[in-house]
């Protein structure tokens, strides 16, 4: 957007919203909204604390582990579903059910099954991310050019070679699209898991801050989380654009 002939950098509208937040905060209407300047000051103070860094490390661990399982299980399952009719018939209804299901409702069950710890959070994260990864890998395999498959077959490709040298690559743009959406969902999963289980990571921090009415702290951590999630999503979109170049040419 341009104002008075000046080209504004992206997201400059955030300044307006930030100012509004500051004004509302300074007016002291509610304890719930402290001024933005106070929140930001708290943010820098909080980032240095051991509690925050522990929460960040735990979240990063749960997130990486969850995404790792979602990808390493999701992609092969999706590819196999795309190739094997029987497996597809068996699994597709479940994948579709879980894709649209409110997974948050499952977290209490997971807590009962796997305890109130890291294990449950990792599984929650995986469950949030994996279904769309499966569906996209399956769709990617389904659209593979028949003659590529015949070509591999006619040159004597073993099933393993066909998998690693044809299916995986031919379906790569769809797979990466699924991974991107899956990772964004996993960000939600890791936070929701922590909030519900709320004795580790940011869940514990949120519990601590809101129980003690430390609203500035609460908002500061929230801003950090939003910024992290947004950065991850943007980074993945950037990677996907680079792959889309070749996807359009196939």
């Amino acid at each position, binding site marked *: 957007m341009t104002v008075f002939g000046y080209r504004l950098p992206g997201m400059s509208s955030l300044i307006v919203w930030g100012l509004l937040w500051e004004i509302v905060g300074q007016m002291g209407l509610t304890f719930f909204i402290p001024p933005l300047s106070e929140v930001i000051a708290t943010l820098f103070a909080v980032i240095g604390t051991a509690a925050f860094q522990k929460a960040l490390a735990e979240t990063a661990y749960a997130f990486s582990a969850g995404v790792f399982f979602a990808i390493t299980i999701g992609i092969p399952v999706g590819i196999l579903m795309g190739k094997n009719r029987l497996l597809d018939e068996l699994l597709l209804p479940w994948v579709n059910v879980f894709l649209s299901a409110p997974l948050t409702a499952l977290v209490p069950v997971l807590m009962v099954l796997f305890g109130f710890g890291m294990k449950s959070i990792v599984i929650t994260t995986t469950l949030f991310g994996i279904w769309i990864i499966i569906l996209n890998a399956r769709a990617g395999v389904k659209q593979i*050019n028949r*003659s*590529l498959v*015949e*070509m*591999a*077959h*006619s*040159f*004597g*490709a*073993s099933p393993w*070679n066909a998998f690693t*040298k*044809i299916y995986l*690559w031919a379906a*790569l743009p769809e797979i990466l699209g699924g991974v991107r959406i899956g990772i964004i969902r996993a960000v939600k999963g890791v936070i929701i898991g922590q909030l519900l289980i709320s004795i580790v990571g940011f869940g514990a921090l949120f519990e601590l801050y809101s129980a003690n009415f430390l609203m500035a702290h609460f908002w500061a951590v929230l801003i950090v989380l939003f910024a992290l999630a947004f950065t991850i999503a943007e980074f993945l979109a950037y990677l996907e654009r680079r792959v889309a170049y*070749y996807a359009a*040419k*196939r």
Partner: protein
Amino acid sequence: MVPESAVSTRNISKNYGDVEALRNLSLEFPRGQLTSLLGPSGCGKTTLLKIIAGLLQPSSGEVEVNGHTVTGPGPDRAFVFQDFALLPWASVIRNVAFGLEMRGVAKSEREAIAERYIREVGLAGFEHAYPHELSGGMRQRVGLARALSVDAQVLLMDEPFSAVDEQTRRKFQEDLLGLVQNEKKTFIFVTHSIEEAVYVSDQIAILLPRPSRVSEIIRPSGFRDKGADNIRRDPEYLDIVDQIWASLRSYVE
């Protein structure tokens, strides 16, 4: 004189449910020669070729290549695809070496072989280009180099020139004549173009549809040695083209 057969099909039938695609089809393919399968669309010529390739199983009957019964794809046959079937994410040299890669040939060795065939089909300098950077004709040269590089005795070509432009196609046809002479391989060539079949073939099998059977086998003999430039105005060439059209025209709607 007809040399011994490199490939024979015996009583091949193929049904898709209730539809009879091929019925009791027997055909001999002489060694070192090019045999065309010619016929109107839907006559099952591609089906027959894929059965010979081992990509499709016949409902009954059998295919023999060099005396061995075909049960699936094998190193004695290589396939050239109508739509080229190149890996879009791989460079020309990797595409050409793909067949060798599947056979477990070491990288340096297979690239050396691939380079030789890339030169042979006239693509020297394009080793590291990607398929989308090449024209249709060049892509099919890659497909041809890939089939040649595995050094199979039998080359199966499924309408290989139908997706390239007319001028490129003529060049391909001339090159193919040279290839048949130099490579000492058996070529089985599917086409729907009468002129193309007569131009390149030592033997033309005319297939008629519903269900598919061999109606006629023609062996042009007189003009093969007169040189690529003279074939198209040779009286025998023109007669055979007319004769084939006369027998096919009633099947073309």
